[in-house]
Structure formats: structure tokens, C-alpha cells
């Protein structure tokens, strides 16, 4: 990086996150779009951490409790997220099984770990891997919504499989817990301000 690069903050300017216009730092509202502006997202770390903790708390019931129960020919059976993936695997639908495995097991765990590491690395004032961490952040921002797949699958099965007394499916508490995990991680990623990663470079 060349030494003559300047930041907006050094020139007393603040970027509007809504429309990308630079405004004088003393203003609190953007002159172009009227949105609130601030040098960094307020309480970014605290809010982000709070949502991460929420996600972790909900993650446990989401995986322990079943997401749906099936009544087929008078027998009732409940299935958890992991159980559903095994079932698909046994049916030889390897492709769909892997998609659901990645979306509902890998993505939430990886996303929670990445966000935790991002928050931790700011607390520890790490100055390495700045670029890498920014890339990771962008990944978490984009990939989180795909975890909703499993909740939607339950929704569709519940809507479709109401075939009299033969076969019917009920949603159970696990789905709600899992939906909460996904929403909490999305809010955590949104609260985080990636500009904080680069701030140590100025000092």
C-alpha cells in the first residue's frame, strides 16, 4: 500500500453507508439521502457479540429437538436436522443431502466462529490478515441466509403432506429455534462494522 493513502476520517469526512456520499464529520444526517451517518456503526462490537451469543444459545435446542414429526400409517416419528440429512443420504439423494448439510450444519457453525474471531481479533488489536478478515466478513454477510433452507423444507412438507390419516407432518420446536439461530447470525453480521478491522492501521 502506498504511504500517501488517506482515510476519510483523517480529512474530517464521514461516509454515508446508505448512498456512499462523503459528508463533513460534524453532520449527523447525510446531505444526499437523509440517512443517519456516523464514523463507525454505533456499539458495533457489543451488538454483534450479543447476537452471536443469542445464536449460540439457540443453536443447542435447534439441534437437540426435532424439527418435525411425521405421522405415517398410525406411527409417529420425530426427526432432527441431522436425522433428516442421514435419511436423505440413505435414500441416495447425495446432492440434496450435501446441500442441506452445508446449509444447516456447516454454515451456522462456521459463521458463528468467524464472527467470534473477528470480534476477538479487534479486542486483541491484531494487525495481521486484515485483507483476509475483510474477505471472511463479506462471506458471512452473503452466506448466512442460505441456512434457512431447512426451515423452508419443513414449511413445504407441512403444507403438502396432509393426506388424511395416512400421512401427515407437524412442525415442532426445533424449527423455530433453528430459524432464530439464522436470524441472530444475520443480525450479528449486519451489526459488525468491517471498517473497525482497518482502524489499527492508522495509529
Amino acid at each position, binding site marked *: *500500500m*502506498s504511504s500517501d*493513502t*488517506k*482515510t*476519510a476520517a483523517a*480529512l474530517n*469526512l464521514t461516509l454515508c453507508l*446508505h*448512498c*456512499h*456520499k*462523503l459528508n463533513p464529520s460534524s453532520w449527523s444526517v447525510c446531505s*444526499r*439521502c*437523509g*440517512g443517519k451517518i456516523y464514523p463507525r456503526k454505533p456499539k458495533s462490537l457489543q451488538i454483534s457479540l450479543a447476537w452471536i451469543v443469542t445464536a449460540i444459545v439457540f443453536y443447542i435446542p435447534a439441534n437437540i429437538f426435532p424439527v418435525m414429526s411425521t405421522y*405415517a400409517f398410525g406411527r409417529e416419528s420425530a426427526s432432527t436436522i441431522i436425522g*433428516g440429512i442421514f*435419511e*436423505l443420504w440413505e*435414500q441416495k*439423494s447425495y446432492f*440434496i443431502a450435501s*446441500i*442441506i448439510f452445508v446449509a444447516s450444519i456447516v454454515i451456522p457453525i462456521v459463521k458463528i466462529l468467524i464472527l467470534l474471531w473477528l470480534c476477538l481479533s479487534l479486542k486483541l488489536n491484531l494487525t495481521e490478515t*486484515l*485483507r483476509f478478515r*475483510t*474477505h471472511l466478513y*463479506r462471506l458471512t*454477510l452473503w452466506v448466512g*441466509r*442460505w441456512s*434457512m*433452507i*431447512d*426451515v*423452508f*423444507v419443513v*414449511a*413445504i*412438507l*407441512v*403444507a*403438502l*403432506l*396432509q*393426506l*388424511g390419516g*395416512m*400421512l401427515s407432518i*407437524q*412442525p415442532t420446536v426445533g*424449527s*423455530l429455534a433453528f*430459524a432464530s439461530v439464522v*436470524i441472530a447470525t*444475520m443480525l450479528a453480521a449486519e451489526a459488525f462494522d468491517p471498517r473497525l478491522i*482497518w482502524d489499527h492501521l492508522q495509529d
Partner: protein
Amino acid sequence: MLMEYPILSHSQQAHCQRCGNHLMSRPKHSLQFTLSFAIACFILFLTANFFPMISAEQAGFHNQMKLFEAAYAFFIHGEWMLSAIVLFVVILMPLVLLAMIAYLLLPMIFFRTILPYTNPVARLVFSLQKWSMVDVYLVAMLASVTKLTSMVTIELGIGIWAYIAFSLCLSAALANLDKQRFWRYMDKIKCHQILKQQQL
């Protein structure tokens, strides 16, 4: 970090020197594309709601599903929270986004005017985009169909084809809606209006 906006020709892209992220590009007619895809979406959305998407059959019992019924089924089973979440991210959010896009772009492109509340509406459009999960729902639908074929007889209806087209058009509309292009286009129209007033 501060950088001067470069003047780009239509095929060029600018990237951040620090983190390498894509900063801006200058596609031709991108906002016009957004508007046309958004209008196509409305029609496809209605189709997906009026025609059955998937129907299941076993031993004489028959059931079919339209788009809004996925959210409704949760509601019937007492899971009103889940019902609200599905309704919000799969149906309400995309519809509201499309309506707002039409509200912003129709007058700007065809009449060169800006309607009241354009600023807050535009800010909402850009901040709410990731909460529309139409593409995720589509993949979920494919997964469900795979899961179901082993249990019951499945038939795909007109609704699902309309929904696939809807999902593609919505992604195309949102992909062409570039933040900077939009706000710069609005600045241009504002200048236009001021010049017009001075001439009168």
C-alpha cells in the same frame, strides 16, 4: 479509506486498493433492466399464487400447495412465529421490495421526476435486500421434492415454473440495481429539474 471515483467506460470495473472489493462498474441501462425485471416479477408472482406449485398424492388422498400456503400451514399448526418469518422473507419482503423499486424507478426513468419519500424508500430498498429469501426458498423446494418422491407421488404444477422464473427475474432485478448508479442517477435528475426551473 478515501479514493477518488475514477471515470469508467462501460466495460471497466474499479476495485478497492486496500481490501480488493469490487467498488463500482458502469453497466449500460442497468436501472432500466431492474425496472423491467421487477414488472415481470409481479406477473409471475401472481401466477405462482393462483396455480398449484406441487401436488402430492397417495392412496386416493390428494393435496396441493400454492405459494402462500407454505406460510399458512405453519399458522394452522399453531407455529405463528414461524409462519410470520416465512411469510415475511418469502412473500412480503420480495413484494414490498418490488413495489418500492417500481415506485422509485418508474417516475425517474419515464417522467424524469422524483416522487415524495424517495430518499427513505430508497434507503429501505438497499438495507432490506438480504431479507428477501426467494432464491433460498427455491432451493428448499427442490430439496423437498427430492425428499417427497420416496414417500408419495409428486406432480409439479404451473405454479412452480412461474416461481422459478419469478426467482430468476427477482435476482436479475436486484443484481442490476447498483447502489451508486442509483444515487448518481437521482443526482442527475435533480440537476435536470433545477435547470428546467431556471429556464422557465
